[in-house]
């Protein structure tokens, strides 16, 4: 397995370079270094001299990808792309355009993101599995029918609707929790409750449908027929045998998203005023802060690759038939 992990880690390097190059090209197709300088310096009374100074100070006065004026390796190393990308592989994210340390911001902001994402995932998973089991248990009944219809409706509704509706009902009309805001520690529970509830409800429709399908697929297998033939009750069949076997694809599906939980939710954090990494990324895009955008995309790619690797490993743990070579 170690050889497999090493090989996958090495595969990750060209992927990360590719992602970095793509991010770089996409960003600079839309924003030139001059645009970035103007976004930072403001729109009133900005002189070209000030723009040039800003670029020079931050290393944006060099060619983007190829330095025609340089010789040899300098053609590649004397570019914005090379200078800004190399440090990322050592997880040195550098400084944002406002001078603040990006690494420091990420380590501070990942906790609020996790405070929302982890309970949303755990509670959402629990609730979705419970309802999916319920539908599978009452399959073919009116509960299954109307449960399915409700799920489709829930899937069709925009996530923004849940956010605004949740804030309106729970925060504004019923006065149960603050509409938005954040605080760390135990006192922060009342701020987290609403985004978690909204996050759980928002993901419930698709979750229930998926897990119900997995349960029903298992119900059609031979071992279920055997269990029934042995005289086991439907309840026992579902909760003892089917649930256990269906958990394999469910858990491996969850493992892949575990690392990306750090990155938070872009819209949820923005609406609820959660100072997480999701809102950090959105702000950076709006402010044309390439240093942050680049760091967050890189981090997202690394975490996603890590998630895929963990998924492969988790297969070997839950299913002894799988071997990684």
């Amino acid at each position, binding site marked *: 397995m170690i050889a497999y992990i090493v090989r996958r880690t090495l595969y990750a390097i060209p992927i990360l370079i590719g992602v970095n190059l793509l991010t770089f090209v996409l960003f600079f197709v839309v924003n030139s270094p001059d645009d970035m300088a103007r976004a930072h310096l*403001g729109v*009133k009374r900005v002189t070209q001299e000030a723009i040039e*100074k800003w670029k020079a100070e931050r290393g944006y006065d060099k060619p983007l990808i190829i330095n025609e004026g340089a010789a040899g390796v300098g053609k590649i190393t004397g570019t914005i792309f090379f200078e800004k990308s190399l440090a990322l592989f050592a997880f040195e994210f550098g400084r944002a355009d*406002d001078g603040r*340390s990006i690494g420091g911001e990420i380590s501070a902001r990942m906790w609020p993101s996790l405070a929302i994402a982890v309970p949303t995932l755990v509670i959402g998973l629990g609730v979705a599995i419970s309802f999916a089991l319920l539908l599978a248990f009452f399959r073919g009944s009116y509960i299954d029918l109307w449960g399915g219809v409700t799920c489709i409706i829930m899937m069709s509704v925009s996530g923004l609707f849940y956010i605004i509706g949740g804030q309106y009902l729970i925060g504004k009309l019923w006065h149960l*929790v603050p509409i938005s805001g954040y605080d760390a520690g135990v006192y922060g529970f009342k701020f987290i409750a609403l985004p978690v509830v909204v996050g759980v409800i928002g993901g419930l429709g698709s979750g229930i449908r998926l897990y119900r399908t997995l349960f029903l697929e298992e119900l059609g297998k031979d071992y279920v027929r055997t269990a029934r033939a042995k005289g086991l009750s439907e309840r026992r069949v579902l909760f003892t045998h089917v649930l256990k076997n269906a958990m394999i694809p469910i858990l491996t599906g969850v493992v892949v998203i575990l690392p990306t939980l750090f990155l938070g939710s872009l819209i949820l954090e923005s609406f609820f005023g959660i*100072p997480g990494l999701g809102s950090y990324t959105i702000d950076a895009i709006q402010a044309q802060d390439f240093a942050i955008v680049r760091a967050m995309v890189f981090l997202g790619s690394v975490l996603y690759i890590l998630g895929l690797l963990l998924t492969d490993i988790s297969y070997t743990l839950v299913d002894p038939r799988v071997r990684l070579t």
Partner: protein
Amino acid sequence: MKQSKNHFLLCGLKKAIHGLFQQTNSAALGVSLTVMKFRSRFVLCLVAALAAGCGERPWNDPYPAADNAQNILYSSFEQRPKHLDPAQSYVENEYALIAQIYEPPLQYHYLRRPYTLIPLAARDIPKAVYLDQDNRPLPENATPERIAYSVYDVTIQPGIRYQPHPAFAQDASGTYLYHALTFEQLEDIRTLADFPQQGTRELVAADYVYQIKRLAHPGIHSPIFGLMSEYIVGLKEYGATLSKAAKEPANQPYLDLVRYPLEGAEVIDRYTYRIKLHGKYPQFLYWLAMPFFAPVPHEADRFYSQAGLIERNITLDWYPVGTGPYMLTENNPSQRMVLERNPNFHGETYPAEGEPEDQTRGLLDDAGKPLPFIDKVVYSLEKESIPYWNKFLQGYYDASGISSDSFDQAVRITTQGDAAVSEAMQGSGIRLLTSVGTDISYIGFNMLDPVVGGLSERARKLRQAISIALDYEEFISIFLNGRGIPAQGIVPPGIFGHVEGEAGINPYVYEWVNGRPQRKSLEQARRLLAEAGYPGGRDAETGKPLLLHFDTALSGPDDKAYLDWLRKQFQKLNLQLDIRNTDFNRFQEKMLKGSAQIWQWGWNADYPDPENFMFLLYGPNAKAVKNGENAANYDNPEFNKLFERMKNMDNGPDRQAIINQMMDIARGDAPLLWGLHRKKFGLYHAWYKNAKPNEMANNELKYARIDTAQRSKLRAQWNRPNLTPLFIIMAVLLLSLAPAVLGYLRKERSPAP
């Protein structure tokens, strides 16, 4: 009474949930049991946590319990401020913070209108002394041509002290404690509050001179360095000197500006400094009321230049050091920022005079009382307008603007056409205060464009025709809910040079009918268009329809309605308008290159002087030529000549006459559609006292007062928790499951067939 009711409700809830949990536990069915158990426990936890977290206050109170009933003003910010360094900051949301912390020599009177400068840290308003080329004094009424230099001696009040700050902390021998931080000392430092020792010192004239020098600092990028280099003697050369000096190893990391003298800014004595300007520049006094000219102590610059602090994001750009009524004690722009009363504030009293109606409005009730009234100001990050608005209605923000979405809920238009708060708002004691912004939002023509530009009669008439057709009254009504005044020229109301009434209308677009301006008829516009060579919207020579291009960065769904409306305005004259959408970067690039044809732009006053608006039409200030603020690239020699005369004049009939002449020229040339001046609507809760919109002053917080007892009472009254809907939802869910559960039980108990 309220407390005991809440307590009772909570106990009842816990009992009910406990009972529910027990009932569910006794059920035979596993699946229902699992779900119900989980839900019951979750709700129980939720309620228990709410009870623990909220105590006796409203459950939805977003602020810590310790702040309850404190003398705190609650506000919000939408975007994190980029700069808090007074040499760099130039944006409204940044001024909202630093104007409470830094004290420039002058300020605007809070209540008087028109806007009037009064001393802040200065002892009095400095008077200019004019000198000729040989530095010989000239009389006050010397003509601008004779004036080579203007000299301002600014004397500040003695005894003003800085806020407590570690940069000033010294040991018994007078050595600064934190100017050479060691690795060990830095270990426990995360924010400025982590420094155990704080110090202060008296404000001196040298601090103001030091800040003027900072405008030229190569690492600071002050936005007004370019402008001030034209006026402050030697500042341009000073910038070059500093750029060179900054590269020397001896000046790393701290470039001590005290060692580099600047001819145009020098210390006369402990409390007096002198600023020497090229020529006559009466508007300079207004700049002295802006944070660019606030004092910065050299100790702070030296302290913040340490690499260990920069690594920890502890910089002057992030932690201001001032003498004002407040100091920034928490700077977490991803969550909240907090201003607290500066214990060393020198003291100032509430103004005793204002406009005649201020007395009846209760704005003079606090006359003579010491400022500031509020102990602490909490700004919370609120990016979206909906939660912000709802929290204002719940009483968790003390004041609010009004977004278009909330306008109908907040405002009603009276039969007289005036705006007033809606009945629901009135019932909550919310007040509406309006003011006309010292700004202008306009549509402009690129005067370098071969079709719409130039000063030819043909182009002029084309622009005049479009000016008539584009109905700004309709725009204000549809898109701004009436929150605007159609502009008759470039100078907004409330600023010298603006003329009210018939004499002040734009005669090329309006007629004076029944005591009010009325837009000219479309027929007149069509006639002008025909005279311009485009009868019926077609080029008389080629017969082709005239196609015009509107360059814009507006592309959101809300903007589509506006762009459609705009197209329709041009269609009134049979003119085709092509909307050229692009992103803001490309739009700016087009403007810089002068390749946009028709576009929308705006300007917000730096200071209340017509020069600050007229310069938007001054030829040598053209955007495409000199990267100036004349976005239309308008260049009329006659206008330019008059501007050069007008800009240095003192306000009076002579200046007004020249402004009138300039406006006649500009209105005829019509480089802009003049657009509108925005009306600003602000809502204030009943407990917010002394609110009066002031478009020029940014340091208004010190005048505000909060009735905290009334706020606490109303908040509790407006935010009683309501759990009934939750129980109804749970009951419906359980009831909907009942038939299936019963059916299953029946099936399980029945014998096998």
